[in-house]
């Protein structure tokens, strides 16, 4: 990056001040607490760290936490796109209400969400009692974890994709049709490239939220060792045993993994933006 780029004149002055503020703010709010986590982990020896983060129960919890979060984010990417599409492209009575409903998982305390989901998906709940005879158990299984993560992640996809779809003029679709594109081609070549960066952002946000989620999941998960324990639960378990260093060790592994995955998603997003810009 050359000095000319940094010094480029903007209409509004104050670049240095704003950058200084940004760095200070991010340090106070994000970096200092995170480095405190890292510092606590550094009190452990390498062997103790490795033993803490690679115990069989812990490995099983990574699989559940990251696996369920990825699947939940993928489900939300598909259905969140559909919801956003319907909200942007169609007019129907009660649209405002449905639009507001999407934000509820943001606003609801997660414990309330967890208890509500458990109540309806348990064997004696509304949905659970319909699924149980079919041999499908949701509450107190890994499937329940997935349900909770889909619930809390939905608004992230809808709210990131919606504004992009609003900017996308319907005339583009008409133009594609007049040029001989069928419906699938219109979606695949015209709409998807335009919304893909936003969709990936929504996916990343939903994923990040799901990985860190605790409140709603513990009620529905059943928390059986090796089966339905999420990593945040094991962190809490370690804290209950006054094992601060062990808890932060798991946190560091989660942070590093999440950071790498988010970096990868950002890279995909950057590539998709470039291809959509050049095509």
């Amino acid at each position, binding site marked *: 990056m050359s000095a000319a780029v940094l010094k480029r004149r903007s209409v509004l002055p104050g670049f240095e001040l704003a950058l200084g503020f940004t760095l200070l703010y991010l340090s106070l709010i994000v970096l200092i607490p995170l480095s405190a986590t890292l510092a606590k982990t550094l009190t452990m020896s390498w062997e103790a760290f490795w033993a*803490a983060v690679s*115990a*069989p*129960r812990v490995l099983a919890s990574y699989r559940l936490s990251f696996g369920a979060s990825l699947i939940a984010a993928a489900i939300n990417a598909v259905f969140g796109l559909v919801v956003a599409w319907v909200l942007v492209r169609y007019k129907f009575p009660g649209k405002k209400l449905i639009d507001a409903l999407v934000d509820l998982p943001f606003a609801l305390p997660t414990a309330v969400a967890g*208890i509500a989901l*458990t*109540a309806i998906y*348990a*064997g*004696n*709940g509304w949905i659970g009692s319909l699924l149980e005879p079919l041999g499908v158990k949701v*509450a*107190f299984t890994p499937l329940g974890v997935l349900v909770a993560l889909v619930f809390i992640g939905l608004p992230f996809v809808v709210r990131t994709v919606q504004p992009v779809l609003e900017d996308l003029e319907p005339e583009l679709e008409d133009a594609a049709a007049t040029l001989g594109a069928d419906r699938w081609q219109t979606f695949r070549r015209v709409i998807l490239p335009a919304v893909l960066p936003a969709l990936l952002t929504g996916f990343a946000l939903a994923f990040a939220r799901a990985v860190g989620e605790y409140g709603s999941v*513990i*009620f529905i998960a*059943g*928390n*059986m*060792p*090796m089966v339905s324990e999420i990593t945040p*639960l094991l962190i*809490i*378990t*370690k*804290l*209950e*045993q*006054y*094992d601060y260093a*062990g808890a932060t060790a798991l946190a560091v592994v989660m942070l590093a993994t999440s950071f790498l995955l988010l970096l990868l998603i950002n890279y995909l997003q950057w590539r998709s933006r470039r291809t959509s810009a050049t095509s």
Partner: protein
Amino acid sequence: MKTLAALFFLLAATGAAAQTTLLNVSYDPTRELYQEYNAAFARHWQAKTGDKVTIRQSHGGAAKQARAVIDGLDADVVTLALAYDIDEIADKAKLIPADWQKRLPHNSAPYTSTIVFLVRKGNPKNIRDWDDLAKPGIGVVTPNPKTSGGARWNYLAAWAYALKKNGNNDAGAKDFVAAIYRNVPVLDSGARGSLTTFLERGIGDVFLSWENEAFLAIKELGPDRVDIVVPSLSILAEPPITLIDKVADRKGTRKVAEEYLRFWYTPEAQEIAARNFYRPIDPKVAAKYARQFVKVDLIKIDDVFGGWQKAQKTHFADGGVFDQIYLKK
């Protein structure tokens, strides 16, 4: 409305400044108990010294509460679910002497409880004793002993029974306890969550409960949903209380805080414990409530497990017996 609230807050604040305030950091199910006890103590203290005292309460999971005190919550006294949590306050923060438990009579536990079974009304699965919990087809609901202090008593009670049954053979006890935990479909993180799973979600046939919690559940739900079954052997649960010396000395509240704890050993306070379904230690009060509390063979943690530190390390630490139960599949 806002100004009114602010004014009220101001009044409350200035009012509190003119008198002593104690902070009692306690565990979850003692809310009702300490509401009654605090009022009684405030009356007692005023009659004795003419001074007013206000007791603020903080409730939460026992380990969380202990951690808050270690991290600097200004508790004058703590009243927690098990000695291990208070040991950690002594060990990690050095706020109290290591031999804190010897300072008050009865291991610093002025009220006790035990572990009983809560079963569905009429006891349809005919659950009578610990053996029944290990049978296939029985659903046992109990919280995770790694996150719930109360659930550690459940686990140890089962272990103690199995030891006695197998002639003190550890391997036999492990198999027995493992069989019970194979029947556990859900491990909630705390006791109240587990009770919800058992009552509201209809999961399982038996809920392992502190006796006082079981009575409280029946009192709140009415007697037509669940029954209490007392097993042939259980464990003496001693929730201890202690002064946090360094905090009390800094705040200058040692005298009133010590009296606050000693007041538990009076007949008046023992009645409060019994009314809130904790077993009183005063023999006279205990005799009066003998019909409420079934006589049961109660083992002590020091006798069977060599104290909390040892029990924690053997059974609940990472890689301990509880973890092993779940790893060998």
